[in-house]
């Protein structure tokens, strides 16, 4: 199993902080472990661990109306599990959501169970008319996260950032991004 990149996780976390994010809801998966630990260790961050990702939509809606900037951390299957909340709460009520979604099931995926979700993720986002951008390299992370938040706040709508394998997983011994953990 190739390790999840602490360096990239740090770059993402720092970018979220730079955007003024003060509350993060999260449901763990392997790619997100460092990000969640960083939130855990940060006394300035309210970390809300969820039972199901859809709760995070309600929590972010409450945070937004209360004047606090928040982000949601989940894998693409968590996005699938949140769809009604996104449509019936965030979109219906014009709530900006900054969604960081680990993009499992793409090319290079070794876990068979991740492959169906990977195949529908972008189409689902398009069907929901949610603008999205890939996070693939550390050097564009800060700008893309800031831009996504700017658009979310200006439009009062959800925006998604897809965290890709190349960013989240350290290259293995063969010098290529290999199969990730679960």
């Amino acid at each position: 199993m190739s390790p999840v990149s602490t360096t990239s996780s740090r770059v993402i976390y720092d970018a979220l902080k730079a955007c003024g994010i003060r509350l993060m809801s999260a449901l763990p998966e392997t790619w997100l472990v460092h990000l969640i630990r960083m939130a855990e260790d940060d006394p300035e961050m309210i970390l809300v661990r969820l039972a199901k990702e859809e709760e995070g939509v309600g929590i972010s809606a409450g945070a937004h109306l209360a004047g606090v900037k928040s982000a949601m951390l989940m894998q693409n299957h968590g996005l699938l599990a949140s769809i009604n909340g996104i449509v019936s709460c965030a979109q219906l009520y014009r709530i900006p959501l900054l969604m960081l979604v680990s993009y499992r099931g793409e090319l290079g995926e070794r876990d068979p169970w991740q492959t169906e979700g990977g195949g529908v993720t972008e189409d689902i986002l398009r069907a929901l008319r949610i603008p999205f951008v890939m996070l693939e390299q550390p050097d564009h992370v800060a700008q893309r996260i800031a831009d996504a938040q700017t658009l979310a706040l200006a439009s009062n709508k959800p925006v998604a950032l897809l965290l890709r394998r190349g960013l989240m997983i350290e290259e293995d011994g063969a010098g290529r991004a290999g199969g990730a953990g679960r």
Partner: protein
Amino acid sequence: MKRIDALTAVYSRLQDRIVVTIMGAVAAELQSIGHRPNFFYLQHAMGLASSMGLGIALCRPDRQVIVLDGDGSLLMNLGGLTTLARYRPRNLVHVVFDNESLLSVGGFPTATSTGSDLAAIAKAAGVPRTATARTLDEFTRAFDEALAAGELTTIVAKVEAVGPSAFVTDLGLLENRFQFQRYLAP
């Protein structure tokens, strides 16, 4: 106990607190007693009123937040009850009007009509204070105790499955949302 009477009985306590309700019948009833800018009615997004209340309570520890939930709505987000219990904000009072039915969509019975006990579920989820109220007196007492306790409380109010004849009011969804946000602005 009728829900409208329970709402009327505690309306004076709601006036200056942050209130988040579920959709349909509850929202229309509270509006019929009197809408205020600190009341938000989460129409349609079943289950998420309690999550929204949690988000507000965590971000505004200086304010008391009251969630007016329903049995059908809570049953759709039982996991959220464990999240509420996990963070147990001291400034949140969670009222569940349990009419044992999906009143707003034809009154079909929910599982609380066949014995599922939401107060027991809340307690088992870890909510530090829970109560079941069957009469108006019991409800008013439990509500006032919860406000005074300064500890997360879930009150299950057993109410009759009756409500207003119509659920659509002249308060626009977005009008309510922006008014509420402006009210909450520090």
